[in-house]
């Protein structure tokens, strides 16, 4: 493939918008994914993306703005999941399974019965760059900025409550508030990246960069930086491959991440495997 062919799609505004969104989405999911993986919340990320699909269908039916409707729906689901997880009154896996799959089922039922209000449900399920507008770019940039701000200014409380919530609480960290804020950041991130990554694949983009970064470092600070960079690279490369191979962007970004995972796994050998296995053992992550 020549350089001209590689650069050819850059003349199209939709592609440039899609590329920016994919790169930012990868970076955002990589950054937030570190906490998702280390707190064992990957099942929440997975479930939340499905839950938001219900909000998408409901907002289409009611004629409400997609981001407002699905956003409100997603935040409500996130807070319910967060509450269930903290209270441990019933099995959180089971509760999340019920809340999120029921929400997803509502979405499918509503779309089949009443239509999707002009939106293509397939693009939401698997990701699509054609519909990406300047507005989507700005929305994602705003969510990215908010997520970076939260993680920058709450770095120590977030780290402390992720590693050792009991002692963090004793040391003056409001762990319930920190967890709620993190869940909201997660919900906002999923909402903002869903159009490119797709409902079914968002969870993988949350998990893969974080796991790869964990294989490469033992330092939390470096893991945050590495996961963000790996996510951004996967988004950029995946989006280019998506255009040239004519495959939806979500699968290509995830497949690029899987290829990076395989390469790092081969390069780091047993050490990387031990680190990644430890994440799985302690958090139940890597389920996407």
């Amino acid at each position, binding site marked *: 493939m020549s350089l001209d062919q590689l650069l050819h799609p850059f003349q199209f505004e939709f592609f440039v918008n899609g590329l920016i969104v994919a790169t930012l989405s990868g970076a955002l999911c990589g950054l937030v994914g570190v906490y998702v993986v280390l707190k064992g919340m990957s099942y929440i990320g997975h479930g939340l993306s499905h839950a938001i699909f219900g909000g998408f269908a409901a907002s289409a039916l009611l004629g409400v703005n997609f981001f407002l409707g699905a956003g409100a729906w997603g935040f409500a689901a996130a807070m319910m999941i967060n509450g269930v997880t903290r209270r441990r009154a019933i099995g959180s896996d089971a509760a999340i399974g019920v809340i999120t799959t029921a929400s997803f089922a509502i979405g499918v039922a509503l779309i089949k019965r009443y239509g999707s209000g002009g939106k293509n449900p397939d693009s939401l399920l698997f990701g699509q760059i054609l519909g990406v507008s300047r507005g989507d770019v700005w929305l994602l940039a705003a969510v990215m900025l908010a997520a970076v701000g939260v993680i920058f200014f709450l770095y120590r409380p977030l780290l402390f409550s992720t590693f050792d919530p009991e002692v*963090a609480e*004793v040391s003056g960290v409001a762990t319930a508030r920190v967890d709620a804020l993190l869940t909201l950041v997660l919900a906002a991130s999923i909402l903002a990246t869903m159009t490119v990554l797709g409902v079914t694949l968002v969870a993988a983009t949350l998990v893969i960069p974080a796991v790869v970064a*964990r294989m490469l470092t*033992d*330092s939390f600070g470096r893991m945050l930086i590495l996961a963000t960079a790996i996510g951004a690279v996967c988004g950029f490369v995946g989006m280019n491959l998506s255009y040239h191979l004519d495959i939806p962007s979500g699968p290509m970004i995830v497949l690029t991440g899987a290829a990076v995972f395989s390469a790092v796994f081969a390069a780091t050998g047993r050490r990387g495997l031990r680190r990644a296995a430890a994440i799985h053992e302690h958090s139940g992550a890597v389920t996407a």
Partner: protein
Amino acid sequence: MNPLEAHGGDLVRLDRVTCRYGSEPVLVNVDLAVARGEFVGVVGPSGSGKTTLLRTIMGVVTPVVGSVRRTAGVSLAYVPQTETVNWDFPVTVAECVLMARRGRTLPWPSRSERAEVSRILERLGLGNLERRHIRQLSGGQQQRVFIARALLRRPQLLLMDEPTAGVDVKTRHEILHVLHELNGDGLAIVLTTHDLNGVAAHLPQLVCLNREVIATGKSAEVLTPEVLEQTYGAPMDVLEHAGMPLVVDRYEHNAPVAGGQAKPPNVVPFTRRDAAS
């Protein structure tokens, strides 16, 4: 005066404290005072409320009856059981200790915070290990990292949950040595332990707990067969060796070994300590 403030030399005082998890009482009518510079061990069987007692002192558990008073502005720090720590979490020694810093919101520590961490790690014999991952340390070093994290808060009272659980004899000695040094510098310490001979017998003050306080006092005063049977619900003998109480499970002590023969007498000279002594 604030009614929840301790007074006199006490850092914290519990008055007739009862705590419940649901309808199940975990602590009943507990009175306890910890003064500046004291070193108190809390012993008792599993489920006796030792960890709940620490959590009540910290303010994480609120008593349903009674009061917890703390000296105004007292700084507490807590070291959890290392068995509950995720040793595979990606943190270096320095990152772990720096979690406890206060004030500054930026992700990276200030020069003075870095210097403080280095000073504490150096003091605890962990110099040059700042960049090491926490799993790459020995058991004693791992426990000292968490003590270092607690010390960064400059506490007046250090609370530790089973600091010697699951460690070997050498590590236990290391940890006790560090704790005695810190206590010598004026730090009050309350720790829980299951180890009556290896830890409790070496502490200046003991609290025997089984939901309620069975006895408090110097180890030689409370490590008696009566108190221990009341605390643990099992008969125990207390021998004396080199001036130290030595607690022996009476069943094991007198149990016949395979073949019907009684255990051979121990070659070390022991003296049985009667309850009245």
